[in-house]
Structures are given as C-alpha cells and as structure tokens.
C-alpha cells in the first residue's frame, strides 16, 4: 500500500524538528528506489535517526544515522514512519 500523503502516518520523519532523535519504524511507504538506497546505506527499520536540518521551503531533510549524514526529500521523509526514542 502506498500512502499518498504522509500526514496519514501516525508519526513521520518529515514531521520531526532538528535535534529530534527517533527510531525508524516502517519504510514500506517510501518509494522502492529510495528504500533500496537507504538499505544500502544501512538505514532500515529499527535504526536510530537524528534529524539535523530542514531545508528552506520544504527542502531536503538531513539526518544522521550511525555516524553518516544523509539528505532526502521532505515528501519522502513524510512517508517514513518513526517512533520517538
């Protein structure tokens, strides 16, 4: 199932603020290509993510995971379900 809008998710990565640390809960709503790329980078369900920065005008969200810094688009972040840590 692919959700059109991230707002349907209980808690999405895209809703977090810089400095928030969360656990990645579900990736299945993100686009398949992105999901694979994130898996390649070691970002999977259960990973701890720390939001670092948000781009202006809905620009990319940067987070830290296992010491690596990764940037993704906000609408993709909105489709990644997280849980507070």
């Amino acid at each position, binding site marked *: 199932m692919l959700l059109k809008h991230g707002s349907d998710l209980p808690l999405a990565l895209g809703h977090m603020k810089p400095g928030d640390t969360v656990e990645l809960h579900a990736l299945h709503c993100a*686009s398949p*290509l*992105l999901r*694979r*790329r*994130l*898996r*390649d*980078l*070691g970002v*999977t369900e259960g990973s701890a993510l720390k939001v*670092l*920065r*948000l*781009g*202006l*005008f*809905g*620009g*990319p969200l*940067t987070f*830290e995971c*296992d*010491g*690596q*810094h*990764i*940037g*993704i*688009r906000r609408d*993709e972040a909105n489709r990644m379900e997280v849980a507070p840590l």
Partner: protein
Amino acid sequence: MSEVALLGNPNTGKTSLFNMLTRSYETVGNWSGVTVEKKVGVLRGRGGRIVDLPGLYSLLPLTEDESVAARFLMEESPASLLNIVDASQLERNLYLTIQLLECGRPMLIGLNMVDVARSRNITVDAALLQQELGVPVVSIVARKGTGCADVLQALGSLAQSEKSSFRIDYGPVIESSVTRMSERLNQAAETSSSNLRWTALQLLEGNEAVRSFLSGSDVLSDLDDLIEETSQQLGLTGEKSDMPTYLRKIRTERITQICAVVLDRSAQRIHTATERIDTILTHRIIGIPLFLALMFLIFKLTFDWLGSLLSDQLDGLISGTLSGWISSALDGLGASAFTHALVVDGIVGGVGGVLVFLPQICILFMLISFIEDSGYMARITLLMDRTMEAVGLSGKAFIPFIIGFGCNVPAIMAARTMEQRKDRLLTTLLVPLMSCSARLPVYALFAGVFFASDQALVVMGLYLMGMVLALALAKLFSRTLMKSEPSLFVVELPPYRMPQLLSLLRMTWEKVKGFLRKAGTIILAGSVMIWFLSNTGPSGFGVNMNDSFLASIGGALSGILTPLGFGTWQAGAALITGFMAKEVVVSTMNIIYQVPDMAGLEHQVAMAFTPLQAFSFIAFILLYIPCLATVGVIRKETSSWRWTFFSMGYSLVLAYIVAILIYQGGRLIGLT
C-alpha cells in the same frame, strides 16, 4: 596476466588506492560516484593489471555506474579481488564484502580510512576481521599512501593462498535449493567460470546482471522454476519477507555477529568538525547565498585578481619573445614567406592565442578540484535540490553541472550516478549549457575588451544565464518530452576533509593536460585549416582575405546572423569553426584579424563589435552548440542519434532566441 579487480562501496577511496598502486592520477573526489567507468592500470613493481571500478553497495546494481562493476565481475572474471572497506562504516561495507566472498575468488581486504575511524574513536581489529572472514586484511590510509606497500605485497602472495572458508548458512530451504540449482548450473557449460553457489544465490536474490548473462541458455527456465518453488517453500515456513529481503536479513545477522567481535564503537563520537562546518555551509537561510558568494569568488580569482594578470604575462611571452624567436629562427633557416606566414600567423597566432588563457583555465580547474575533494559537492546538491525538484530534476544533477564548468565531456559521464533514467537523460541534454573552460577564452577576450571594469561580474552573469536556461529547459523538457517519473534524491554527506596540495595539483594538472593536448591537436589543426582558408580563394593562394574561401563560408551565414548584431563573415566563420572546439573561435579571430598580440586583437575586436553586439555574440557562443567531443559523448551515453541531434538542434534555436532578445531588446532600450 593476472588481473585484480578493485571493488568497494562508493567514496571509500578505491581510486586513491588505485593511484597509489599504479602511479596513475585518476580523478579522486569526496562524494559518491566520482568514478563512473572502469579504469585499468599496471601494478607498481610487480606487473599485473588492476581495474578500478565504480563504487557499489551490493551486487544488485541500481544505477548505470554500479552496473558497470556488477557486469565486470560476471563477464571478465578477474583472477582476484581487492575489496576496499571503510573502517568508519564497517557494517554497511561488509554487506558487499560478503557477496564478494561468496564469489569464491582469492580476495584481499584493504581496511581503509583507519585514521578517520580512529578520530571518531572507532576501532576495528584487523587481525580479528581476518580471522572472521578467512581472507587477509591490510589496514591502509589510501589518501596518504600508508599501507600501500603491504597491499602490493599481499596481492603478490594472494594467488597461492587457499580459498576462504567463509560461508553463511541460509537455512534448509535456501541451502537445498542452492544445491539443486548448482547441480543444474553444473550441467550447463556457459557458467563454468563463476562459482556455482554464488551464481545460484545471486539468481535467488534477483541479480539482473547474472540473469542476463545466462539468458539464451535453456537452464534459465529450469532455474526460474526452481526459484519460484523456493520462494513458495520459504513462504510455507512462515517467513514473512520475500526472498531478497530474507537473504539480506541472514547476511545482516552475520555482519552483526562479526562486528560484535571486531568492532569497538563504545566510545564513538560524531564528526564534530564536519557538523560545525555544516551548520554554516548548509544553513537553511545563508547556505545558498554562501554558495553563490563562493562562485563569485571563484570568478573573481579566475578573471580579475589572478588570471588576467598572469595571462598578460604569458601573452607577452608568447606573442613577444617566443614569436620573435620563431620569426628570426625561420629567417635564419631561409624559410619562404609562405612558411613564415603559416607558422607565425597561423600556428603561433591560432594556438598561442588560445594558450595565453592557460592561467585562467588552471585557476578554474584548481578551484573546481578543491570543491570536488573537500566534500562540499554533496552539500551543493542538498542546497539546490529544492530548486531542482521544482523543475523536475534531482539535486544530484548539480554535480554534473559543476563538473561541466570544467569540461562538458566528463560532466555528461557523471550523470550516470543518478538513479533514474529521466534524470540522467535530462542532465545529459542540459550539461552543454554549462560554460566549460573552452568557452572561457572567448569570454576573457570579449569581457576584457568591453567590460574590463567588471569582468568577473559579466562572466558570472554568463555562467548564471547558462544555469538558469538549463533549469527553465529542464522544466519544459520534463513536462513535454519525458514520462512523468518523480525524480529521486538521496545523498550521502561525507565528512569534510582538507584537500591535500599535492593531490590538488595533480588533479589540476590532469585536467590542464587535456587542454594542452587539445591545443596541440584540434586547435592546431583548426588553426592551420583556417589560415589556409583565409588565404586561398577562387583565384588561388594569397588572395585578399575578404575574397577568401573563409569569407564566403562565413558570409553565407551573415544574413541570418544580422538580426543578432554580428552579421559579419568574420563572426560567421568563427562560429562554424567553433564547433570543433570552442577555443577555436579565439584562434579564428586571431588569424582573421592578423594581429601580433592580445592588445592588437583587443583593439581589432573593439573596432568590429559594439558592446551590445559583443554581449549578444558571447551569449550566442555560450549556447549555440555542444562541441564535437561533447556531441560524441552524448551519442555514447544516450545511445540514440535522435537525442544527440535534439541536443544540437535545441541549443541552436535557444542561442538564436537569446541573442536576438539581447540585441534587439538592448537596442529598444537604447543600448549600443
């Protein structure tokens, strides 16, 4: 001869190590996807070939550059593998390592960036890792060359070493399926070179490169049945995930076990320096203005502060001293007037006229290399992604754009690292609008004459114009010509590092060498040709230049160029010859106006153009057509003549529209 394949995750220092092991100077950089093609070198001291491959995260390729590496492994079956592993990101690097180990080839692991890991308080025990994986592990710092001698030595004794005993048990369902698939594969002769167990596992995982290697043989349909059966059996055991996910899960579990033994991250800390720099450079408000300011600084350095000063010195040297020497040497040898004119007016004028811009080109290349090596490149994509998203592109397209400021050819190849075909095609089509260093001599000449006081500003305006037009066209093309695929953006931001002076100089030299080679070949040939054409006409050799063939060729265009403000045969001739290489525009002007030095040419140009006409002309030069070499690489990367001709066609139309708007619009508001 034995062949070693260099494999590893992106941005782990494969090319740095390759350069150290072979004394090559391939381009290195601090972002994922610097190397997009395989590069072959000869190992220092002991012979044997080593192949540098684009980085990849797993053997299931996602992008074009990754599939280069995956295909290489299947098709060329290298004798041994050298796997580079980033010690500061051990867990994710080991995933590829495991897939490579399953290949069953002799393998050596280079544990790289141990210094970076140490600075973050991460320790990896190389000896224990060696024990766990069953293959030799050597700690290295490839950028500094530490441990490279050990790698060379270890590679020497690798061939004789026994096979690794490393093996993962994937559970009864998969294991029995792998055994049956191996038996079936064994009956088919085609697959003899690669390890059967590995081939079976890769097929179960859905590796397209392996599949297409087997396609055509009758085993494939049998194997597909087996795969389907296995997948059902796996479902029956109560396993919820599909097969690729299941395999990944088993491997990840093993990696976790290995890391528990060899890795100590208890005192791990984040990269504080990088974090601090990023709070400024990728700041949500000042990030983009800082990027623009940096670009302006680059143009200031290239054109105003350093470049033109050095260029004037070089001009004095070439057109004064050198030309004088050659002239008197020719007189001394009793050369004919013909030879004298050919060498002094044609070759020294044409090639020398371009070479005087060497300082600007060196400085620009050096500054681009600095950005490439520092880690800022990935941040630029992050800053620009919002804008790029709006026009239907990925922020990653900005990397090819920036490389395009140096030369469009490698820039188009850099588009391979993008995940989506639409992004790659759009970027390939639009890179020619980036002002490459070949257009720089034209700008430097014209801006120097007409806009001397604010050269950097005018030149930056041209660069920005190319960029803005590229974005506008991206919007247009993605709306009209492409399938509506949303573009993907995901970027790793590597830790910043200070580029080393030596490697910076080497990278610059490699690029400058390309320019010098061009000066010695295509620009030289072009200059000689132009000189002949400008001196011969229907009535023979030695005609007045206005009656020459060159004048009639250029004159044929002058009619359509008149509305743009430069309807002279000289401008027409320069544009035609500029297709070979954009620098040839300057060579042509030098020969046509037959001037001894830069000052003379500047004077002539000032007579021939008004400032408005000049601006229209350089804008036209910026846009009008990709050069010959770029056309070649567009054809190669798109494998389509249609898109190749499209790229030439749209740029001609665009250049015409922009130049007419500048000239006619300028006249309307009273400019001259």
